[in-house]
């Protein structure tokens, strides 16, 4: 055996720890790529697991936002009616008007004087308006009709607002909504809670399934990782390809899932246009901030899961 290798045996640069190898992105990606090819099946399975987990969660998110959207749209179509006491002096009206328009929740305010209210009543009664003969046109209290700002609409806040306005001395009564809207809210609140809790449970399940799938694929290669470490690979060298893979898995898996949900959304939209029954539903997609958050958390989950799973292989 003759090797003739030791012409340049650099004993002098022995143990220079800070002479780090410049791990260019190219080297890293090349290794990730060859790794991907070699373990294609395992990678594909992990990606599918990520995708399915996110898919289930994304469907629930879609459901949640549509419920909220639906109820809010109904709620915002009502407004508040603020009745004033009969002895409110006429010159207080403009300042009250100002005060109401100044509220952040308020979109539009219309003043209805006693006379106008009387006129509306007359119109409403049409042919039978004789019953009002001899009645003082001032018998109805003056009122403000308030349209609520759609963007800030929340039943709780409206109720609060109504309570506050009710305390003003010039106000006799604040009326809002109808009882069934109230009930709709209670019901939809319940459904939303159920959906949200299920969604969160699903999120945990997804996190659990994804991290464990990753763990299994890492553990399957633990011996290999240990050996690579024993011949002098840095943690970055070993972890790098796995992190690139995890990043791709998280990104592709969640994008695929959201793509499927989006396709379903477009499909329902198509049905909406055709069917009379569904027209009012007006389905909405998951807000874009949430889609970004889902993709980001999916990527984070995969990367974190990989880091955690690899910790054991990278000790000594």
């Amino acid at each position: 055996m003759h090797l003739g290798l030791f012409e340049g045996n650099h004993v002098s640069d022995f143990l220079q720890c800070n002479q780090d190898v410049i791990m260019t992105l190219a080297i890293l990606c090349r290794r990730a790529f060859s790794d991907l090819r070699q373990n294609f099946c395992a990678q594909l399975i992990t990606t599918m697991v990520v995708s399915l987990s996110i898919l289930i969660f994304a469907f629930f998110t879609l459901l949640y936002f549509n419920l909220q959207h639906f109820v809010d749209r109904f709620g915002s179509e009502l407004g508040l009616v603020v009745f004033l006491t009969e002895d409110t002096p006429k010159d207080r009206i403009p300042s009250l008007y100002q005060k109401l328009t100044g509220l952040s929740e308020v979109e539009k305010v219309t003043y209805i004087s006693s006379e106008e209210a009387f006129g509306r009543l007359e119109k409403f009664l049409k042919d039978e308006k004789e019953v009002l003969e001899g009645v003082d046109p001032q018998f109805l209290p003056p009122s403000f009709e308030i349209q609520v700002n759609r963007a800030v609409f929340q039943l709780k806040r409206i109720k609060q607002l109504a309570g506050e306005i009710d305390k003003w001395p010039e106000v006799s009564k604040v009326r809002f909504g109808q009882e069934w809207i109230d009930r709709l809210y209670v019901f939809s609140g319940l459904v939303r809670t159920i959906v949200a809790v299920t969604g969160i449970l699903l999120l945990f399940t997804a996190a659990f399934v994804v991290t464990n799938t990753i763990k299994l694929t890492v553990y399957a290669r633990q011996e290999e990782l240990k050996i690579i470490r024993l011949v002098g690979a840095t943690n970055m060298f070993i972890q790098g390809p796995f992190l690139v893979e995890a990043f791709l898995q998280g990104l592709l898996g969640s994008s695929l899932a959201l793509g499927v949900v989006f396709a379903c959304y477009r499909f329902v939209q198509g049905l909406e246009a055709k069917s009379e029954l569904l027209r009012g539903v007006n389905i909405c997609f998951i807000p874009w901030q949430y889609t970004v958050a889902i993709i980001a958390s999916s990527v984070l989950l995969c990367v974190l899961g990989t880091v955690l799973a690899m910790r054991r292989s990278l000790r000594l």
Partner: protein
Amino acid sequence: MISIESSIIRLKDVSKKYPPDNVVFSGIDLEIEKGEFVFLTGPSGTGKSTMLRILFCAERPASGEIWVDGVALSSFSNAQVPYLRRKIGVIFQDFKLLSNHTIFDNVALSLEVIGLGKKQAEQRVMQVLEGVGLAGKTSHYPLQLSGGEQQRVAIARAVVNRPSIILADEPTGNLDLQRTEEVIMLMEELNARGATIIFATHDDRLFENTHRRVLRLLNGKIRI
């Protein structure tokens, strides 16, 4: 006394125990000079492999301190250990080859971890594989080779990046007499070119007629 500078490996009062109370050795003091070729021997289970494992930080000692080229191993964090290992070629008793990679890739790994691409590594890998007589089997997988052939792959991987220190753990354990001679000659050659070599074996015949220092590990102590 040998100064720290001329001794490339120095152990002071080193002991190692495995839980719960298996004391492999204790109070080991040892100095190995730069360019020395020493045999480490002793019956099976006395801790030859453990001693070598401590030298390349695969294990930490229970107590005591080890200096390699003047640097205390206790000062190496786990993240820094790889830089030490690149300067030490280890021939593992159980080979530790990657079974799903070819012979070529196994040997190239030593160069890959220091940032060399496969193309750059190719010439050196081929040269070393030729040296151990495996040039014709570069695209085989470890399990398609005999035990002796696998051992030679392990040797090739350990020396391909021209390490200053070679820790050989029973590198001839699976080889016939002729191959054993060849491995000894290879080690002699590496040693002649400046590498420090610790050669662990329980085969007395390997150092019967040698002038080399022989460290005998027995009952947890070293006797020269």
